[in-house]
């Protein structure tokens, strides 16, 4: 797929954009699918779309992760039909908290942290962010915090699951030449960004 006649930097940039667009589309599809599934209780969401955010994070870095998340929340709410509704606000704030946590974890942890750890942190951040905004804007009732331990545990579980899925996906993708980094292409080396 790589042609020696084309500037590898430009090629990599274009590829990155295309794949990010693909990730966003997939994330929106997962986001919408989640809305159709019956949930055990309101706000207990599985967060499948985060898998794509994680993938973008590990392949292309923090900014890419932000792009995927924000686009997913925006477009996803248009598709589902709850733009600017309370549900959208919760989704957005949860997503922002989660992505912020995930990108900082990645930046701080570097090689030591893997998709599972980042995802766990992200999921917990999402849950905490959502609950906090819900308390602030919707349900000013101390009783809401009764839910917090359950939320936390559930988020941890889904975080780990999503992390595993992301790890699998990353493994699959990295074995394909289209996802080599520009640096690696220049040096002709096969390298992985993280273990």
């Amino acid at each position: 797929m790589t042609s020696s006649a084309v500037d590898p930097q430009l090629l990599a940039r274009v590829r990155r954009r295309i794949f990010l667009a693909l990730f966003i589309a997939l994330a929106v599809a997962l986001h919408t699918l989640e809305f159709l599934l019956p949930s055990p209780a309101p706000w207990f969401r599985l967060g499948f779309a985060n898998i794509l955010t994680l993938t973008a994070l590990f392949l292309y870095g923090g900014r890419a992760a932000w792009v995927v998340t924000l686009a997913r929340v925006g477009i996803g709410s248009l598709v589902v039909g709850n733009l600017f509704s309370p549900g959208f606000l919760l989704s957005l704030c949860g997503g922002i908290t989660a992505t912020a946590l995930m990108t900082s974890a990645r930046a701080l942890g570097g090689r030591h942290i893997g998709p599972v750890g980042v995802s766990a942190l992200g999921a917990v951040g999402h849950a905490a962010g959502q609950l906090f905004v819900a308390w602030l804007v919707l349900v000013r009732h101390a009783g809401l915090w009764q839910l917090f331990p359950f939320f936390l545990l559930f988020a941890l579980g889904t975080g780990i699951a999503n992390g595993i899925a992301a790890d699998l996906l990353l493994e699959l993708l990295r074995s394909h030449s289209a996802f080599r980094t520009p640096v690696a292409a220049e040096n002709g080396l096969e390298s992985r960004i993280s273990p």
Partner: protein
Amino acid sequence: MALAALLRRMTPLDRLIVLVLLLASAAAFALIGHGPRGTRVVVERQGQVIFSAPLGVDRTVTLNGPLGETQLRIRDGHAGIISSPCAHKVCIGMGQIAQQGELLACVPNDLLVRIEGQEAEEPSHDLISR
């Protein structure tokens, strides 16, 4: 076997993070208390509800029984019996209750006090008569 596969995909730091979060949620459980706080106090006799009131509003209620009057006090989100004509005052000794499902009882005076209800998702009323 699946657990081993799971652990293999996690770096040492990952495992640490997950462990810490697990402990945090355990702590959260302990702090919040093992039961959801109730919202209503319900008094029954022979299975019939004779009094019902919210836990959030302070009030003292006199409940009549075969032995006489038992006083129930609801204050600060707790309910407790403060006086009763029974011989051993076991009901007073039961102290205060607040969590859903907890009970107080004055058996000689035939009274059962229950805490029930969680935050209702349904509205408290369908229509208003004015």
